[in-house]
């Protein structure tokens, strides 16, 4: 565990150095413990793969007091089981028509399209972080065989619902945005809806499984036209 002053109102807490369910579980437990320890002095928390950014109110407290309370809270922390959290199933219409990079990703990997789909939908992913854009959940880790580097030239416009891979991470684009990840399919569900409660179907620590669906089912579930 390492604590560092990050800015005038922030402390960075590292809980490990690599992406793993164990480190992620520590981040989750630390987030709960820190929130309890800081109370009203806490402004925001940004959990990520192996770190927790703690943003506090510098008019009410300072980095010394925050650091002290965080250390104390962590020394008494019970790390929850890595298995905590909900499992969410996200339907995906995988096809070259809905995922423009599916064919190139398959050929680069020396696999058939069906094999890529099978590998992507076979395992359960963990929500490691949410950020980049509202509702953008970083999921890990994809099978090494279908890991693919980001595109050299990012797209100006990635459609809403696009399911994509970058290195060993995968994600569903919550809204139209620029992006450099490899697109392999489309999910008909809204990943971020400001009018819904909750606004997102997943939260950090949840598990996600992808379920292949047909074009008809994709449209029936309300997916945007491909």
């Amino acid at each position, binding site marked *: 565990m390492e604590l560092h*002053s*990050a*800015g005038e109102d922030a402390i960075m807490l590292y809980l490990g150095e690599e992406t793993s369910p164990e480190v992620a579980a520590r981040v989750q437990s630390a987030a709960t413990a820190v929130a309890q320890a800081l109370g009203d002095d806490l402004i*925001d928390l940004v959990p990520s*793969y192996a770190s927790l*950014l703690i943003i506090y109110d510098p*008019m009410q407290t300072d980095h010394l007091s925050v650091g002290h309370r965080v250390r104390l809270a962590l020394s008494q922390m019970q790390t929850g089981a890595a298995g905590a959290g909900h499992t969410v199933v996200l339907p995906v219409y995988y096809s070259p028509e809905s995922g423009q990079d599916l064919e190139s990703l398959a050929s680069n990997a020396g696999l058939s399209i069906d094999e890529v789909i099978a590998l992507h939908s076979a395992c359960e992913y963990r929500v490691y972080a949410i950020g980049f*854009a*509202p509702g953008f959940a970083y999921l890990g880790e994809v099978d090494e065989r279908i890991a693919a580097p980001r595109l050299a030239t990012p797209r100006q416009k990635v459609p809403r619902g696009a399911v994509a891979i970058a290195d060993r991470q995968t994600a569903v684009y919550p809204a139209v945005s620029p992006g450099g990840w490899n697109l392999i399919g489309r999910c008909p569900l809204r990943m971020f809806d400001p009018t819904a409660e909750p606004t997102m179907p997943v939260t950090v620590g949840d598990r996600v499984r992808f379920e292949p669906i047909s074009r008809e089912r994709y449209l029936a579930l309300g997916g945007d036209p491909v």
Partner: protein
Amino acid sequence: MSLKVIQPGILSLLQDGGRTGQHRIGLTNGGPLDRRAFDYCNRLLGNAKNCTLLEISFGGLHLQAQEDTFICITGAKLPLHINGKEQPQWQVLPVAAGDEIQLEFAEQGCRAYLGVADGFTIPPSFGSSATVMRENIGGLHGDKLHAGDELPCATVTTRKQLYLPAALQPHYGKEITVRVIPGYQQKHFSRLQQRRFFSHPYTVSDRCDRMGYRLEGPAIACDIEGILSEGICFGAIQIPADGQPIVLLNDRQTIGGYPKIGAALSLDTAHLAQLTPGGRVHFAPISPHGAHNALHLAHSFDQRQALLERRP
């Protein structure tokens, strides 16, 4: 019950104090780039802290009052006319229904704040009215102002006409010093690279917006290309592969994987955000203790400034 937008200007945004507590779903802060000018605007108007105001980047805004109220304009220096007659900034001014309020383009600085008595009444989204265009959230429709928009506000008939004496009004220069808390990723920057960063001036590039200010100058080398993605605090200074620093501001993304050389003080990013391309920036290191002290001193200094009243 509103001010009507006749011409929206280049980038005019409704902003309150900013959105907090929503990073877990990926929402950024928004809020005023120049917090000090924003706070003075509300204070002069006798408003509660963080009332919703307009942040006007570069100027060019033309409004028509639809009722009687009071307005105040702080921040960037720009010619202000009410019904064609020149009026002062940093001063509460009465306006009557039908009055034309015109702001020309900024002559010094580039972010001005226009407030009304009791603030604009904008329903909060995720706890705040702050407009973040990238997220399509806040303001009237998650967007900047457009001609024809109506900015709802209350009718107010009495208000003290306070002003901030000229000697206390900030001067927005073209060359500034930004204090930086050296970062925890320092080990990835050699001492030579750190010295280079703190001893050469940088120039504001034309890629500067509410997300961040990209600067140009001696490239800073880092011994890693990226880090495991992690939360980004306000003012963080990222060093991407080309070595040109980016100071991240109110609309920054909440998570990123570029190494950071440090984080700038908000007191100084307020001045940075008043710079336009070509402005010069010097970086100076400050300890976390020094930063905390500076923040509190600046706060108490502003609180002690007595606002004067102009009798009509």
